[in-house]
């Protein structure tokens, strides 16, 4: 097995595009190295993207935020501007593993690992995040939810890799939040997770909302009915109940060692209600 650490995006593309090499991208390695140790992955080469300078930066752009694909979650947590604008996304990334794991784990790795239970993905989807992809055919930008296509599978073509996560500007009177349920308090994997981003008008009525559900289907679920349950309300009890019911209905979980389908359908509704209240409060704070 070969280890490569290119310093430019083009070099990385060349290494990844070489089909013979059967290369895997290495970002933080907190999924990839664990899978290799467990005999579940055996790439022919590893292409470490952490040496590419642009991939290590968080920058504020005209359109919002650009988070380089190699930026670890701990760096996001310490970035005041990002944490102020997208607290839900930052707190989702800050739930990953433990302090040690967060020193390495990236949003791009979390997304491209394509685990149904990835914590940052529902938060990014709720936040309307996009990914910037570089590949042999050039650069393209697609919504986050288009990347995972099933457990462990992505829509990335051969030679392509994610170079950045793009978050929009935070609108006035808007806020986001992410909550997950785990049986312990850390070092665990989501039994269910819910990201919500919403915006209000100046009367406090919800104008727009995005509700994304994690760990209750093979890929992240953008629950349109759940969002509708909030829009036009001030998140009164009836709206929250409707939200919970819509989330439970949209969820398509399985029974496994981490929880029964029935349990997950219930808990996703509970999380949605709680996350919605936090996002609502955050939206109000920006008034």
């Amino acid at each position: 097995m070969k280890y490569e650490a290119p310093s430019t995006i083009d070099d990385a593309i060349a290494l990844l595009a070489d089909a013979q090499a059967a290369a895997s991208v290495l970002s933080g390695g907190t999924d990839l190295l664990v899978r290799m140790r467990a005999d579940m992955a055996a790439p022919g080469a590893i292409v470490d993207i952490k040496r590419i300078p642009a991939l290590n930066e968080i920058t504020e752009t005209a359109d919002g935020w650009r988070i380089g694909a190699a930026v670890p979650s701990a760096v996001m947590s310490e970035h005041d501007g990002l944490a102020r604008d997208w607290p839900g996304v930052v707190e989702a990334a800050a739930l990953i593993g433990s302090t040690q794991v967060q020193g390495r784990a990236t949003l791009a790795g979390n997304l491209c690992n394509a685990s149904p239970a990835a914590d940052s993905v529902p938060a990014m989807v709720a936040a309307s995040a996009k990914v910037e992809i570089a590949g042999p055919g050039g650069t393209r930008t697609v919504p986050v939810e288009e990347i995972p296509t099933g457990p462990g599978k992505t829509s990335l073509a051969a030679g392509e890799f994610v170079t950045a996560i793009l978050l929009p500007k935070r609108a006035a009177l808007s806020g986001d939040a992410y909550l997950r349920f785990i049986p312990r308090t850390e070092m665990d994997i989501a039994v269910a997770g819910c990201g919500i981003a919403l915006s209000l008008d100046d009367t406090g009525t919800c104008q727009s909302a995005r509700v994304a559900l994690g760990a209750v289907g093979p890929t992240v679920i953008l629950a349109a009915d759940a969002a509708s349950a909030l829009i036009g309300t001030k998140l009164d009890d009836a709206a929250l109940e409707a939200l919970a019911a819509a989330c439970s209905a949209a969820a398509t979980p399985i029974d496994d060692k981490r929880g029964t389908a029935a349990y997950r359908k219930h808990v996703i509704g509970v999380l949605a209600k709680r996350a919605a209240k936090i996002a609502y409060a955050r939206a109000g704070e920006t008034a």
Partner: protein
Amino acid sequence: MALDKNAPETRSFKVVGSRPLRPDGIDKVTGRARFGADMSAPGMLIGHILRSPHAHARIRAIDTSKAEALAGVKAVVTRADFAAAPEGMEDVLDNCMAGEKALYDGHAVAAIAATSAAIARQAAKLIEVDYEVLPHVTDVDAAMAPGAPALHDGRSDETVPDGYSANVMSRVEYGHGDIEAGLAKADRVLERSYKTAATHQGYIEPHACLATMGPDGQADLWCCTQGHYMVRNTCAALLGMDQGQLRVTASEIGGGFGGKTTVFIEPVALALARKAGRPVKIVMDRTEVLRATGPTASSSIDVRIGMTKDGRITAADAELRYQGGAYPGSPVGMGSMSAFAPYDLENVRTIGYDVVTNRPKQAAYRAPGAPMAAFAVESAIDELAKGFGLDPLDVRLKNAAREGTRSSYGPTFPAIGLEATLRAAKDHPHWSAPLGPNQGRGVACGFWFNFGGDTCVTLNVTPDGTVTVTEGNPDIGGSRASMSMMAAEELGIPYEKVRTVIADTGALGQNEVTDGSRVTFAVGLATIEAARAAKREMCARVAKIWGIDEEAVIWEDGAAKPAGPNAGDYPPMTLAEIAAIASNTGGPIAGHHEVNAEGAGVSFATHIADTEVDPDTGATRIVRYTVIQDAGKAVHPAYVEGQFQGGAVQGIGWALNEEYIYGADGILQNPGFLDYRIPVASDLPMIDTVILEIPNPGHPYGVRGVGETSIVPPLAAVANSVSAATGVRMTDLPMSPPKVLAAVQGQQEG
């Protein structure tokens, strides 16, 4: 010479009871400590074990030829490389390397030694095992039913009544009195069934060893174990060697909790080393640890208790069914003996069934067998007490065993500490602290026997007057500090002048395993006696120098002094002064003691747990937790508190989230720390501890073992607490969130 035994009650201590820094602390924090996997040898090969992917399968044939042909492979062994095991050790061998059948998912079927781990793993894939897959069973009650798939035929002993499957290995019964007559006197008879899941000891350090064997048959083994003398004896028997030809050295150990009181990889590494003619190292990964080492038994228990409305238990009866994996030997006997041990009962009976299933062979786990039994009994007592509107501590006090009580398992108790722990619990501020919304408080008691056994200690005095204590029990709970403290106490020298080392099997006679909470008691006793022997020798040397009677020399404050008619005639001679001239007075000075230690005092505890249950998710949070336990005498109180806290935390894990989850295919679903959920630090509050000291008359300083009792009460304390928080009685562990939510929702509907 006057060296009377010190009556434990009256003695005042100088070193014992203080809290010196741990001698292994710096090494462990800086990474200098050498654990099992840290040993290497020139020319070393890496061993890897191929394991069964089936829960139950006949091994028709194993073809290792392709693996042997792979470059870098130096030896492959299967069961054919081992001679028949000596009587009584067949199961140990079969568990280390499967014979006719693979009996559980993860059972070892072959092993490879190669020049690298990658080659060894690749070779494992080239071994062709022809399996005939057989029906399997993993649940204890299902395994007992007639018609269940049988693991072994004809191994049930004569104690097993008709009507059970061949998986029921034996039946035990304890108790006295007349159950039915007792129940007839009760105002209420509660009958309940309880279940607990199998849990793993969860030690941080996976099993690891390095074996060498020369063509002359002399062998060395380095390994992490709770008992290297046991490893030596077992491996020698399985490999057909003389015990004296195998020297075993124990590494530092990253936890054991009972799980390292047997062998798994050690005989395999020796067999590979023998065949390859080169040193072989085997290190398990976490998956192997969970699949193929010993978790504890899972249990299914029925309890019947009769109580009068003022809280007196009139009769107590329990049937305990434990599955201990693929071979006989579940700890159901100790569960049956300990179940009602805290209580003074006129009519009591326990019946236990030892059952085999297609799971890894259970190994000892901290107070083996007792936590599950206490869960059932302490839950039932709690439910009865609450039903009558009585304080659960008062009910326990009313029925508490005390000095002179005939225990439920036979012996009559000497001075014991249960009542003291219950009274301390009542007086503790925790017991009367207010509770918040969705919170509940639970209490439970626990008991453990404790143990002594074969022990050797040699205490050497160096020429500069420092002291080395040489003992043979791996230090898993701070025992090196405790031994040094007891030696310093006895010799009257500072703690810093004593260093305790764990010697290899060549250095001392037979030592029992570090288990049964025996080390501070038994090795401590031997250390004190070895120190006394050294003192006698030093007094004799000084008597010679002074030209007076040996009887006229006493040992006080680290020095020999003239006494009796010679008192004041000579200035005292310190240990260092005596040591400096030892060569001129007869040679080096040492003391030693060899004993089968008896008189280990039983230990009781009472735990108080507060939990908060999220009614929407079923998640339980431990809000506050207090352990009150009798330590006899706490030699190093910080270590004692650590044992109290550690046992409580393991019990909390058992109560809330830890469980072996098997699929319908009999394959373990969660062989890793992601889905086998041990509590993490952020799950827990600081565990409060109260040490009581009711001296054990069997030990010179009054020491009782403290390592195990602390895991006995938490299952019930937490379950009683969750039941109080939710209003639903929880009888099935673990109380994982889906289970608690279902119970809460069931109650709302019902």
